[in-house]
């Protein structure tokens, strides 16, 4: 199979890899550059746990052709914390017990970040809408919704960007 060079920015640092024709972004992130934070749930766009931000917009990395991210900025959960400081969303998820098995958490965090970046004062309905493509089997969603609303209120959110 043909292999092509691909360059993109992952959480602020430059990455250069070879990708195969038709290889999806999730695979490139996990196997190509070793970022295991985006998870493989269904591989067909139905669960949301592979969500990453491409230039700030949430995308399902399992359905994204890797070659389409040439030169673009990818954000994964690995890029949320700043050193030892958790991102306000991560902290709110912890404080609200918004994860049990944690499998949905990376996708939830990034769907939430995309929401709060464009709408710092979301209503409960806005939050529900933002995570409606993300399946959680464990928490019953309520703690996740509460966590996102709490993170929106926390003053630290803006500085983290």
């Amino acid at each position, binding site marked *: 199979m043909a292999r092509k060079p691909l360059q993109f920015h992952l959480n602020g640092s430059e990455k250069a890899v070879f990708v195969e024709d038709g290889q999806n972004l999730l695979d490139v992130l996990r196997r190509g550059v070793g970022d295991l934070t985006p998870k493989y749930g269904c591989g067909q766009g*139905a669960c949301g746990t592979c969500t990453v931000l491409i230039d700030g917009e949430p995308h399902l990395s399992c359905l994204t052709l890797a070659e389409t991210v040439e030169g673009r900025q990818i954000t994964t959960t690995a890029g949320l914390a700043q050193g030892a400081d958790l991102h306000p969303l991560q902290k709110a998820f912890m404080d609200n017990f918004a994860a049990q098995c*944690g499998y949905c958490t990376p996708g939830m965090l990034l769907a939430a970040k995309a929401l709060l970046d464009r709408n710092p004062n979301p209503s409960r309905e806005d939050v529900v809408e933002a995570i*409606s493509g993300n399946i959680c089997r464990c*928490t*019953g969603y309520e703690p996740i919704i509460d966590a996102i609303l709490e993170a929106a209120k926390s003053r630290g959110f803006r500085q983290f960007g």
Partner: protein
Amino acid sequence: MALHRGRGFAAINYPIGMNLGGDPSQALVHSNPGGKFMVALSSIDLGQGMKSVTRQIAAETLGVPVEDVYVDTADSDTGPHCMGSFASRGTHRVGNAVIEAAKEARSVMLEAAAEELEVDPADLVTDGKGNIHVKGAPSRSISTAEACGAAQFKQGRTVSGRGIFLIPLSEVDPETGEQTPVSCFAHAAMIVDVEVDDETGEVSVLEMNSAYELGRALNPRLVEQQLVGGAWMGMSHAAWETTEPYYPDRDHGPIDFNGYLMPGPGDIAKHNIAILERPAPDGPYGGKGPGEMCANPVLPAVVNAVFNAVGVRIDELPVTPEKVLRGIRANGGAQPQGRR
């Protein structure tokens, strides 16, 4: 064509663990020379909090800070045997095994400390902050790290302990048929309010009110988390999830998350929970554990609420709109049962 409200009730008496051959679990505890403790288990944490709870139990029994305890559930090839994380048995069975193992490790740690302090181990107490001292004389003390280090570098002792929890198999009495399959029961009661649309057959769960008695809540926030998430799953089993929603052909069944229905974040119901703590005599620090019981009462309560709302008695789960509509049609229309 109208929306009908209904209220349903369910109560459960829930057995913790099972007794098919004793239902055993084991734990091994040891300290490293720096006085940090490792709890080795084969019991898996699926997100229910097994690691957090066994860590607390080990720290409490050892008399050391919770930060000084690690729990390793990595591998059933290298860890001591466990029956598994099912039957709501984790906290109770594994917790008891951890207590036994931690007690043995603690007694070695105290013997090592006693040798260093030249006192009787029976006179020593732990402060839970990383120190061991003579009862009534806090100045005669040694840190748990020093005691564990001395044991392993001077005295030639392993600071370790083994634990197993096993309820002997209860045979059936051939005369009476009597048996004691379970030693520990948790309890719950739940009231569910639903709304049923008699035109579409759709059932919405509006509110759940529940009371759970599950022994001592060893980690109250984890208990609450399980009850919230478990009730969602119960609601999902009651009114959404099935691998066989259509008939008569299996090929029309769901093959992915697009067809396998579950309530999403917009479908959740308000859930008020009261937790009653009645410590179990044979539970670790009185704990029983919420487990599968989080989901169970929701199903019968929803079914009862649907009957109360429109007079349709569903006897096969889930409560799909189709079953509700067929029931309503068979009854010649919705028959609200009224509030009792």
